[in-house]
């Protein structure tokens, strides 16, 4: 069992994660379609410039726009969710223990964060998880759409960090905790394409591929309808 979890299952988890996520992105491209170039026809008056080239003339300052956006409306949630997700994605790559393992196996490694910082980022993830849990329990609008499944997904996402924290500080029996940590990480990776965690690729699809007023970067290239 121990050998299976730290051996073949690691490969299975990474393959499921990579190919599953690629499949979900492929599905998005199949379900959406390229944006059309609309050309407005004005029946009279001066012919307009190419609508794609006409500069947007902002009537609001950037600060006013910010206040009206999701950042201004839900500042606490947006701050917490940003920190939580950044810490969740960045920490595993740069934590010292992971890089030591990589080095032992393949003689390659990424730069490592100072241990205290990695520990702090882990606490950020756990604290964010607690924030989401409390929000789900106490905010009426979140409770209204919450099911057992939502709590399960939150557990899947935070368990690798809780067990990682326990293992690093040698709380409880180290061998058991580290095995649970590996297993939890594998479960999380495999859950990404097939549970609500699929919002991981969809966050980027929404921000960089779909065309809407909040698209970043090049302005998007595809629409749902």
């Amino acid at each position, binding site marked *: 069992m121990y050998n299976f979890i730290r051996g073949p299952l690691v490969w299975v988890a990474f393959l499921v994660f990579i190919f599953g996520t690629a499949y979900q992105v492929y599905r998005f491209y199949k379900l959406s379609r390229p944006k059309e170039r609309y050309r407005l026809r004005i029946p009279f008056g001066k012919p307009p410039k190419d609508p794609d080239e006409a500069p947007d003339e902002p009537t609001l300052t950037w600060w006013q726009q910010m206040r009206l956006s999701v950042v201004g409306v839900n500042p606490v949630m947006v701050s917490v969710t940003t920190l939580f997700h950044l810490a969740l994605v960045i920490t595993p790559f740069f934590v010292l223990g992971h890089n030591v393992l990589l080095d032992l196996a393949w003689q390659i490694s990424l730069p490592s964060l100072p241990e205290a910082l990695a520990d702090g980022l882990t606490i950020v993830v756990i604290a964010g998880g607690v924030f989401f849990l409390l929000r789900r329990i106490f905010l009426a609008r979140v409770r209204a759409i919450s099911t057992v499944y939502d709590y399960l997904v939150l557990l899947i996402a935070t368990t690798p960090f809780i067990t990682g924290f326990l293992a690093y500080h040698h709380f409880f029996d180290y061998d058991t905790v580290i095995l649970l940590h590996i297993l939890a990480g594998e479960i999380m990776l495999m859950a990404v394409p097939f549970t*609500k965690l699929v919002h991981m690729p969809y966050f980027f699809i*929404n921000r960089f591929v779909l065309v809407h007023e909040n698209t970043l970067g090049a302005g998007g290239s595809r629409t*749902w*309808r």
Partner: protein
Amino acid sequence: MSSNDQAPINQDEVRRILDQHKDKTKTALRVCAHCSLCADSCFLYHVHDKDPRYMPSHKFINSLGKLYKKKGKIDRAGFQEIEEIVWRRCVLCTRCYCPLGIDIPEMIAIARDICRSQEVFFQWSELEQPAE
């Protein structure tokens, strides 16, 4: 109330429309992280004292989401509830914001399609007139 109240629901027809949009519905239901960030983008949510039933995700999950999960096996009373959601709690202004890019208006529009196929729709003529 809508016309043709008593006729049985044609489940084959409901399932046919559901199947047409199956992949999109499934994807939207899966991508929705139940984060509730869409709530504040709905003006109806605000004018109804932040009643969670007016939150865009709540409307889509309880209309098309419900039809999809029950594979269309919803009786006429259930359809009346969906009519309430997709016509009275949503005007399809398409201003809702989803941080994960779900096209919520499209989901509501599909639910409306399914309702119309069963003669369930909003009738303006039966709207109560304000007292003079």
